[in-house]
């Protein structure tokens, strides 16, 4: 056991504070309260037992498992520098993440405001080489994203950011006072009755509270989708902002090409450009191939339990060009559909007259899609916003296989949005 003199000058307290600072440098949020708790705890344990010392520090200063490795790093860096090399390494328990499992997402990131950590170069902007044209708003609404000029795209973005949409609410299990409701408010009724010698003169009621549904966006950013991806990211951003304005911290966003990347944090940034710049940095496989099945597999395993609670609505944005196995896609789609309130597939190609969703991927996925809608111009995005506002409170009855077989398998709440009848011609 090391001698007490191992702590230089007996300045344990100042080292404790210094260590907390070191942890903050590693990016952990350690509060003064926690530092105090650590100091208090040290008074209760034999601090020259390295193992106990280590665990005392960890249990008081770390509040999430994902920080364990950071803690370990900082612990060594700090206490060894102070000459505590007598902490033999083998005494310290390793804190590896299970090797075979992908690291689970930090739940702190889920639905929570995060400070921007860095900004960087944005993704290359797709520039259509055409002279700046003036567009009437109505023309702009109907124009396909892939045919817009840079200026039109810019105008469309501005229109998007001005839209104020909301998603249909879900009933929660909490109740609030109401003039008439489904549940008698016994507490209030009785208290009021006391004024009249316990006569129940008036019965008060409560009704269920509602909250907006969580929304999860999973967007394809592979090569075939490139023309739409950027506009869709703007759409995602505008939607996330609108939701935040309404007090809901409930928009989660993911993009995928060959694999899935979570971009929720980027979308929380204040400006679209900053968000898109970071998204461009985060997404390594921008405009690569498409593996919808394995990306959804990743989503289902890693994220579904965390972000699909409480009746989430999932928007899957893709043209359905899939290089993976259709069986895997069907399998993962079914699982995804079963774990959310409503699964909506948005396909920009639906805006092209005569388009039929015949790709293997789409054929596999459609039986497990609740709605199949176009997203190729502003009008269709507005239609989507309307659809989200009027989702039924109960989940649709799913009939697996209904859209399978030889039929194109378009299923939509609103027949107006089926591809054959989608009105706008290409320009």
């Amino acid at each position, binding site marked *: 056991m090391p001698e007490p003199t191992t702590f230089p000058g007996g300045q344990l307290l100042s080292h404790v504070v210094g260590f907390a600072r070191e942890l903050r440098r590693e990016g952990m949020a350690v*509060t003064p309260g926690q530092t105090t708790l650590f100091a208090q705890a040290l008074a*209760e344990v034999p601090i020259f037992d390295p193992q106990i010392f280590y665990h005392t520090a960890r249990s008081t200063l770390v509040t999430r498992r994902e920080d364990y490795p950071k803690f370990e790093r900082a612990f060594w860096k700090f206490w060894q520098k102070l000459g505590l090399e007598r902490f033999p390494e083998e005494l310290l328990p390793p804190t590896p993440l299970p090797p075979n499992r992908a690291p689970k997402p930090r739940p702190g990131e*889920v639905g929570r405001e995060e400070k921007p950590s860095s900004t960087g170069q944005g993704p290359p902007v797709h520039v259509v080489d055409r002279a700046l044209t003036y567009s009437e708003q109505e023309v702009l609404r109907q124009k396909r994203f892939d045919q817009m000029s840079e200026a039109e795209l810019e105008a469309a973005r501005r229109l998007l950011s001005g839209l104020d949409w909301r998603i249909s609410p879900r009933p929660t299990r909490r109740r609030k006072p109401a003039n008439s409701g489904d549940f008698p408010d016994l507490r209030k009724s009785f208290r009021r009755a006391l004024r009249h010698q316990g006569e129940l003169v008036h019965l008060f009621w409560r009704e269920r509270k509602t909250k907006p549904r969580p929304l999860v966006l999973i967007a394809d950013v592979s090569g075939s989708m490139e023309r739409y991806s950027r506009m869709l990211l703007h759409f995602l951003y505008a939607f996330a902002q609108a939701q935040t304005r309404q007090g809901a911290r409930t928009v989660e966003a993911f993009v995928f090409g060959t694999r899935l990347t979570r971009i929720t944090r980027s979308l929380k940034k204040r400006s679209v450009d900053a968000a898109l710049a970071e998204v461009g940095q985060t997404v390594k496989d921008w405009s690569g191939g498409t593996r919808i099945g394995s990306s959804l597999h990743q989503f289902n395993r890693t994220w579904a339990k965390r972000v699909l609670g409480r009746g989430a609505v999932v928007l899957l944005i893709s043209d359905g060009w899939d290089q993976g196995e259709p069986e895997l896609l069907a399998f993962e789609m079914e699982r995804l559909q079963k774990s959310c309130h409503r699964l909506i597939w948005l396909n920009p190609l639906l805006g092209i007259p005569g388009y039929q969703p015949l790709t293997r991927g789409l054929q596999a996925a459609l039986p497990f899609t609740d709605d199949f809608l176009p997203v190729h111009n502003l009008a269709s995005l507005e239609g989507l916003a309307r659809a989200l506002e009027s989702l039924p409170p109960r989940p649709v009855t799913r009939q697996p296989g209904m859209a399978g077989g030889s039929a194109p398998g378009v299923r939509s709440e609103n027949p107006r949005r089926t591809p054959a009848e989608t009105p706008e011609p290409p320009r």
Partner: protein
Amino acid sequence: MMPSTVEETQKALEAHHYITEKGLAVSVFLALKLGRPLLLEGEPGVGKTEIVKVLADMLQTRLIRLQCYEGLDINNAVYEWDYARQMMQIRLLEASGEHDREKVRQEVFSSEFLLERPLLQALKSVNGKAPVLLIDELDRADEEFEAFLLEFLSDWQITIPEVGTVKAEQPPVVVITSNRTREIHDALKRRCLYFWIDYPDFHKEYRIVRERVPSVPEKLAAQVVAFVQELRKEDLYKAPGVAETLDWAASLLALDAVRLEPTLVEETLGVLLKYQDDVVRAKSAAQDLLARAQVPSPL
């Protein structure tokens, strides 16, 4: 018994058949010593709830359990008045000619008509001993409840408008568990000591099985654990927890098994795995898993 060192804590837990690592023992010891809530996270079935039961046993005190769910509110977590009986009481008082309103009020809002829910119960010591309070699966409750809890955990008191403030003579020992379907708010986390319980390694899990299902033959127990350890490496939707290992060992025992065989494994996989897709996947890999499931020697 209140342990006075980390070693004592670990030994006491083991004496109550809870095999633990040093880290968790340190956390439990500190929670007891500093009177802080202990927040335990980990995959389902790693023994989060179990340790609380053991803790209550060890401290020879009551265990009060608050199971969280969405919509959990003060009426269900703290207290509620028994309105029906209060009504009745008013009628009785009326019949006996009592007309003093204030008196009636005092009468019907007495502790006799107060239904104590877990959090209120937890503030009361019995025989000078504070209870152990388990707040289970806090991630299921909504944020409103978490905010309330924050206040409760810092002041150890509850105000009932008609009665006044109830304060704990001794703060209860509080353990909070979460399965992380949602993040617990930072403010609450910082009030707590934190420990992530991981799946145990072979040796620890083997000891747990031997401790919890002592009648399972050594060899079978070792095989069972080795198999489960291998199975957890598969790409499963829900990997089996320690609880499932124990169930499996007990099931095999009930089937008079002496060692693992492919058919036996296939027939009983449902005990370990709770998703049909996982069962199918494991079935096709059963042979391979069995071959890989090596019992380390020495045990």
